[in-house]
């Protein structure tokens, strides 16, 4: 406060402060105005553009379409949700989608954790940037190229068959397994990066202390590393889970006859032209993700994002 008053006094002593300086002074005196101006731009995007879109989806879900002409009938009805609830196929698809998202998340955790640990603690610090680049590099290749590459590899007599052939096995072919595999590959960097960041913050001295106190590596992992890195794992899983839950392209390319929630939405928008029903289906992943985020928040993981 003292400093402040000193400054204002000096400013007052000077002849006629410029408009910029006066604006700065006004902003300085009114923290609320400052905050409003600072937030108005992002909020202008967030509220109409983002939350507005979500609200529009939710509202549309209560309308129907004229089945013949495909025009939206603006008439409030619960028919879409009734269909979702009554038709067992949608429950199956929803559960399958959540299952795929969970499987992808678990696989990415199982691969990502040791990988991130090696990057953060085992490899010499000078080489770390190269590994980070190696993990990030696949993100620069277009999504479709990677998915189609997997379609070719998993094709009948493709690379997967050739590699597994000598062991008397064959590739998984197109289907649910292929979908999980490809999604796990696609989203792996999103798991590795937050876990790597979390592990970098874990002091080496803790690992040494654990060893000094007689803990074997597994015990150290369980009692020291995992509790410290858990929020990072959850943060990574938010990415892998939500990205898998909404995906419909990979499953179209390598999923064979499988359909997930994203496909039902896509078919209803693109093919059947039934936007209201698509909106009703789209609320399922939103609800699942909100529940997931609420659970993640309790672990404190959102602070790691």
């Amino acid at each position: 406060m003292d400093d402040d008053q000193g400054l204002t006094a000096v400013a007052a002593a000077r002849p006629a402060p410029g408009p910029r300086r006066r604006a700065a002074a006004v902003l300085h005196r009114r923290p609320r105005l400052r905050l409003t101006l600072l937030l108005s731009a992002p909020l202008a995007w967030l509220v109409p553009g983002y939350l507005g879109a979500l609200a529009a989806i939710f509202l549309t879900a209560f309308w129907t379409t004229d089945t013949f002409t495909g025009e939206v009938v603006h008439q409030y009805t619960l028919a879409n949700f009734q269909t979702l609830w009554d038709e067992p196929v949608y429950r199956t698809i929803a559960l399958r989608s959540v299952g795929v998202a969970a499987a992808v998340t678990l696989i990415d955790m199982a691969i990502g954790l040791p990988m991130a640990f090696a990057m953060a603690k085992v490899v010499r610090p000078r080489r770390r940037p190269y590994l980070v680049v190696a993990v990030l590099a696949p993100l620069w290749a277009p999504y479709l190229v990677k998915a189609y590459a997997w379609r070719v590899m998993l094709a009948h007599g493709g690379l997967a068959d050739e590699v597994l052939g000598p062991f008397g096995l064959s590739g998984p072919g197109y289907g649910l397994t292929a979908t999980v595999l490809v999604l796990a590959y696609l989203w792996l960097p999103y798991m590795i990066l937050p876990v790597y960041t979390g592990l970098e913050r874990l002091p080496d001295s803790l690992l040494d202390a654990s060893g000094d106190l007689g803990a074997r590596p597994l015990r150290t992992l369980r009692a020291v590393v995992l509790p410290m890195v858990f929020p990072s794992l959850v943060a990574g899983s938010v990415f892998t889970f939500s990205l898998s839950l909404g995906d419909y392209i990979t499953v179209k390319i390598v999923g064979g006859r499988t359909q997930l929630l994203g496909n039902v939405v896509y078919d209803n928008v693109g093919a059947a032209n039934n936007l209201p029903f698509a909106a009703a289906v789209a609320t399922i992943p939103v609800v699942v993700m909100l529940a997931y985020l609420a659970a993640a928040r309790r672990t404190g993981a959102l602070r790691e994002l």
Partner: protein
Amino acid sequence: MWSTRVALAATAALAIGLTGACGDGDSAGKATGAGQGGFTVPKIAARQSLGAGEGRVNLVAWAGYAEDGSNDKKVDWVHPFEKQTGCKVNTKIAGTSDEMVTLMRTGEYDAVSASGDASLRLIASGTVAPVNTALVPNYADVFPGLKLKPWNSVNGVAYGIPHGRGANLLMWRSDKVRPAPTSWGAVFDANSPYKGKVTGYDSPIYIADAALYLMSSRPELGIKNPYALDQKQFDAAVALLKTQRGLIGEYWSDYTKEVQAFKSGDSVLGTTWQVIANLAKAEKAPVEVALPKEGSTGWSDTWMVGAKAKNPNCAYKWMDWIVSPKANAQVAEWFGEAPANARACGLTADRKFCDTFHATDETYFSKVRFWTTPIAQCLDGRKDVKCVDYSKWTQAWTTIKG
């Protein structure tokens, strides 16, 4: 109690939705008298004269309908059109009729090659305008059997220019499938040796293929028209497709995906179009196609002009071009369908092409069931039952895929 009320509300809303076509049209102030098939026709005027071309035209088309030489250097009728008219062609390929309806409703496209299961929906929603056939000189040579049909006209007003017609075929890998199949039974046989390698068309209209097969395999169901199914017949078709699902490796709607699947052998048997077989053969996949003995579902396509077309002059020029004898012969031969222009038969590379594809054979086409939008009012003329409408077909299709 609550659930009963919800159900009632849902039923009421559905009923409103079903009659909504009329209501919506009226409120928009564009409706005129009732058309056939129980829908009102939005009043949109056809063009009376043509002006200069706009320099471009945006098309929604089936794969193989607007070839510019990128698939096969010799197959190109887009560039000559551009050279002659100055209209640059932008083509958006659609995989299903539903996709076409959706794309046209955006208003960003000028013309569409609509099949019979899309055309009436486009007319009823006011998405396409009537066509003044006097402005399309080549219309005079179109087979009379294709003019003013229920799927391209309403109350004697033409809504488009017939493009061609053909049948959905059965394709198989000649090195994997022996003996060569002659019946659609091959793709519906629960004990098929090709389990996991069968493919089907990923659209609700594929239910009609199952219904067509049931017409001969289970005559007691009394199916007369695969697009007019009462609840019992519909359930039988759906049950057949659910059995078939166990055999399916993947469904296709993207034609490149089917070409690749047949090439690699991930699919060895299933429904296809002639153009897909051509592309697969061009990529050296050993495939054969045939029209099975039960006959087939098929299409009769119509070029229609968008009601809000930004380039209507170029759209008319395109319609005239695509049914001109030479271009119509090219597209018919490439896609593997019967041309619409009678004079096209003299210009095909294969002299016997029109005979092979039965271009003039109306009795043959009486066996091909052209795609039509199923509506509640039975298309086969039955008055004592209600038929299952297209929205139920769409929902059933999701259930079939599981």
